């Protein structure tokens, strides 16, 4: 399937993936520390493993950004 991931078009061999599977394929080591938007809508972290991505979808993910002192 063809997806747009963080603005880049990618072709994946899988025809269906969950958000958590896609993050894994993108080498995201800490999925609990990323925010995800699927077609511009936030996906709740608790639903990463049950939210399915289909061809043509646009998925964006960003890592938590913070720090201190």
């Amino acid at each position: 399937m063809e997806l747009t991931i963080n603005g880049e078009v990618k072709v994946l061999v899988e025809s269906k993936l969950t958000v958590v599977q896609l993050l894994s394929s993108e080498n995201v080591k800490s999925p609990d520390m990323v925010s995800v938007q699927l077609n511009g809508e936030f996906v709740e972290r608790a639903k990463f493993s049950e939210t399915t991505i289909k061809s043509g979808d646009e998925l964006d993910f960003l890592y938590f950004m913070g720090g201190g002192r």
Partner: protein
Amino acid sequence: MLKMKKDVYDDMITHAKDGFPLEVCGYLGEKDGIVSLICKMQNTDESNEHFTFDPAEQFEVVKKIRKDGHRASVVYHSHPETPSRPSEEDIRLAYDPNVSYIIVSLAESKPVVKSFRIKNLSVTLEEIEIV
């Protein structure tokens, strides 16, 4: 090596000074190997000791940076009263291995700006070249 336009470098320092005594933060955008765009972000912590990006603003800004043909390749924040080095918390929370982390310190009479790559809790200093 991080190549950066002087106006972006200066804007970053001005942002840190204007926000003092609070920490300020933001993204820098890179195009053709040169950091040439600054996007100031809200520090949702509004704190002298911490900063946190708001995820909704993060997506909005990163998408705008992309639309402008840049890549959000640098995250900067200020240390109003501590040196320009990643704190333990900065290192622990540096989850994104694909960006440079800049710290603008106002602890001395003259601002100190340093860039770091942080991956798997390991910190590497990165030289900044003003172009």
